[in-house]
Each structure stands twice: as structure tokens, then as C-alpha cells.
């Protein structure tokens, strides 16, 4: 069958699986909300203080939530042998892998966008920066999934891959954190953020093009 | 310049010499560790061969 058919079949399969498992969607989301709730408790609830650090907190939490959710990207496929079948498909592995990453983002990244407004209210962010926050999450979280996929593909075969995964992935998340966090901060003070948004778009496009290949190569390495 | 002046480094002796000393230690360690490892490994291989 055609490549596009395989591509959408993989996405659909992973979405169905996520729906039947559910906890995969809920866990990172709960983690995201929980971490953000902890900050006011930890540093005190002075409105101006929270407001000042809100963009940073939201983005750091999003980074951690994205990283925690990564394990589910290839874990079950690796354990039950589905990954072998995907690698044996005559279709290019990188395209099938991209499909899996997209499905994973729809399940774990997109929900972050939906709860972000609620958290922005918690942290007293000005209303006019909410749009930019959503935009940066929309552009940034797919990058986290794409880059994270490389790391998780490298470590999926390891028994204790979790710690090493964070070491591999978090440093690579730095640019997204910087530009996205900064865009939200600037938007809060009413400054233009076109540059940051454009850079985020560029990073997203680059990640879309460049990340699936090393992910596929890493999966081949992990399966042996 | 006297020796004393040289070692005093214009009052920055602590910073300058700590930097240089630390660098020396790290660089030396990077040579010594693999050499020692190799010597040990060669010795264990030789022992293994003798046993056979």
C-alpha cells in the first residue's frame, strides 16, 4: 500500500491505542498542572512575583512534562515486537517514525495547550500575553517531541534509560526554552515578539526535517 | 621581575595558580588513567594466556 496510507494508519493506530489506555494522556497533563501548582506554594504567592516568573515556570514545566511522556513513544512497540514490524516495512522508517511522533504529540503535547490558559490564570499572567503563550506552546511542544524522539530511540533498549534520557534531551531543549519563554515574557510587557516566533517556526521546520532520520537510525541501533 | 613578584601574580596568585594547577591535574589524569588501565588489562590478558 502507499506510503501516505501507512503514515495515516500509524497515526490512527497510535491514537486509538492512546484512547484505549487513557493514562498516557492524563499523566503528563496532571504532572504539568501539579508542578505549576507547586511553584506558588514553594516561593510564596505574591502576585507580582508569580507574574514575573510565570512564562519561565510554564515553559520549564512543559519541558519536564514532555520529557516524562517520551518513554511511552516507543516503549510498548519495543516490548511487544511491533517496532520490529515497523522497521521491516518496505516504507522508509523515518516517515513511519514521524507518524508516531505526530500521534504522540497529539496525545501528550496538544493537551498542554488546552490547560495552559487555566494555569496562566493561576499565575496571574496578563491577558494579552495568553495568545502568545498558546502560540509558543503550539510551535514549541512539537519540537520537544521531535528532539525527544531521538533521545528515547537511543535509550529504549536500556533497562535504566530514564536518567540518561534526561541528560541527552534536556540540553537540546535549551533553544526552545529560551525563545519561547522570552516571547511570552516580552508579550507580557507589550513588546513585539515577531523575531522569537519566527525563530521558533524555523526551529520547528528544521526539527521536522532533520529529527526523523536520526530517530530511525537510533531505533535500528536499539533493536539489535 | 623577581621570583616573588612572579609568583604573586600582581595579587591574583590564588586565581591564576589555582587555574593552572587544576588544569595540570585534569590533563595529567587524562593521560595516566588510560595508560594505567591499559597496563592492567595487558597484565590480566598475559595471566589469562599463561593459564591456558
Amino acid at each position, binding site marked *: 500500500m502507499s506510503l501516505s496510507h501507512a503514515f495515516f494508519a500509524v497515526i490512527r*493506530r497510535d491514537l486509538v*491505542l492512546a484512547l484505549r489506555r487513557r493514562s498516557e494522556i492524563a499523566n503528563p497533563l496532571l504532572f504539568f498542572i501539579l508542578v505549576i501548582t507547586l511553584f506558588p506554594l514553594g516561593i510564596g504567592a505574591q502576585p507580582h512575583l508569580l507574574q514575573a516568573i510565570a512564562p519561565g515556570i510554564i515553559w520549564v514545566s512543559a519541558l519536564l512534562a514532555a520529557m516524562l511522556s517520551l518513554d511511552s513513544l516507543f516503549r510498548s512497540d519495543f516490548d511487544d515486537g511491533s517496532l520490529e514490524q515497523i522497521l*521491516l516495512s518496505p516504507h522508509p522508517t523515518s516517515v513511519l517514525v514521524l507518524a508516531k511522533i505526530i500521534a504522540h504529540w497529539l496525545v501528550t503535547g496538544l493537551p498542554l495547550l488546552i490547560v495552559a490558559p487555566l494555569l496562566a490564570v493561576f499565575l496571574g499572567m496578563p491577558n494579552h500575553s495568553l495568545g502568545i503563550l498558546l502560540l509558543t506552546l503550539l510551535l514549541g511542544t512539537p519540537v520537544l517531541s521531535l528532539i525527544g524522539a531521538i533521545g528515547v530511540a537511543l535509550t529504549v533498549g536500556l533497562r535504566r534509560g530514564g536518567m540518561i534520557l534526561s541528560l541527552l534531551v534536556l540540553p537540546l531543549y535549551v533553544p526552545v526554552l529560551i525563545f519561547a519563554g522570552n516571547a511570552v515574557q516580552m508579550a507580557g510587557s507589550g513588546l513585539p515578539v515577531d523575531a522569537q516566533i519566527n525563530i521558533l517556526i524555523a526551529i520547528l521546520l528544521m526539527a521536522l526535517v532533520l529529527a526523523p532520520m536520526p530517530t530511525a537510525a537510533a531505533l535500528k541501533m536499539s533493536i539489535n | 621581575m623577581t621570583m616573588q613578584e612572579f609568583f604573586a601574580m600582581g595579587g591574583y596568585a590564588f586565581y591564576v595558580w589555582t587555574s593552572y594547577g587544576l588544569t595540570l591535574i585534569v590533563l595529567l589524569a587524562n593521560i595516566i588513567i588510560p595508560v594505567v588501565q591499559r597496563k592492567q588489562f595487558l597484565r590480566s590478558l598475559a595471566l589469562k594466556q599463561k593459564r591456558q
Partner: protein
Amino acid sequence: MQTQSIHSLEGSGLSCIRDDRVLFEELAFELVSGQVLLLEGKNGSGKTSLLRILCGFREPDAGEINWCGDAVNDSPFYAQMAYVGHLDGIKKELTVRENLKMSLALSSPGQYPIHEALAKVHMAGYDDVLAQALSAGQKRRLSLARLLITENVLWILDEPFTSLDKQGIALIETLMTEHCASGGMIVLTSHHDIDLPDVDVQRINLS
């Protein structure tokens, strides 16, 4: 398979070293359409490693594998092979039909449509059952159904008889005989001795 052309799988000078242990060296074989290659040997003798090398999951430490005269990566090898391994590749949260549809999407349609393939492996009517409700033997037969619905010439089977009863074993032997008769070929490992009177079976002992 439609063209009934002769296919061939050759390995030459293959060797595999695992954790300092030479599993096999200078291994060579040639398999053409209609033949079965049975790998025998003790546990840990490198049977599964050889299968995984054939699948491209592992690199051989020396030697090469050719499909119809070309290196595996420069040939339509992956479009013409199917693998049933130690792990069954079945998603337990999906139904039988959904599982098979996924396999179909990853490859191209072969000899039988899904319902016929299920009937052939004695699982007719199980279409909408979740895979987690299946017994081990049923799961095994489901993964074998994958071989029937996708287009392929070469079957690579790792211990296909595990968790099957006498009936199930006879079923696979029938399927294998049919596959070879229609120009297919099979590489498999097995603890059981296989009973394929009408097929040309080569044996390699790996110990």
C-alpha cells in the same frame, strides 16, 4: 509471487560474535524458491542471531547476504519478506482485525484477504475480539495470519511452533507446504523436528 519467478537468498562468509563468543563463522547457504532452510542447534547457538541478521536487525561481523543476486539493501527484499519473531508484534489493546489491518498498511496486500486468512488459521469469527483476550496459541496463529495477508516470498520464522498444540503444528506445516508450493521460501528455527514430506528442506546445524 504473482509472477512465479525464481527468487534466491544467499549468505556467504557470515560470522557472528557475541560477547567475545564466536557463534558461527564462515557460514554459507543458498536458498531458492520452494525450499525451506531449517536452523538447528542448542539454545544460544546463534539461531536467533542469524535470523536477526537476515532481517537486518543485526549486522553480521563478517560476510554478506544477497537477495536475488543483489545486496539486501539494494533490492526489494523488505517488500518480499515477512518475519514472525519471538515477540509477536501484536497490540493487545487492538482487535484482531485492527492488528491485521496495521500489518497490511505497513506492507502490501498478498494472497488472502483478512477474513480468509483468519479462517485458514482457524480463527474465523474472532475479528472483533481484543488481542488481550486471546490465548497464547491464538496469538501465535494471529501472527502467522500476518504472513498470509501480506505480499511476501520469504518467511522468516523464529520458533513458530512454541505454544501450539498438535493441531496448530499440523496447521503451520500445511501453510508452509502451500507457501513453498506457490514459489515461496522459508527460513526457520525450531526445537521440534518438522514434518514436510513434499518440500526440499535444507538443514544447518549451528553447534
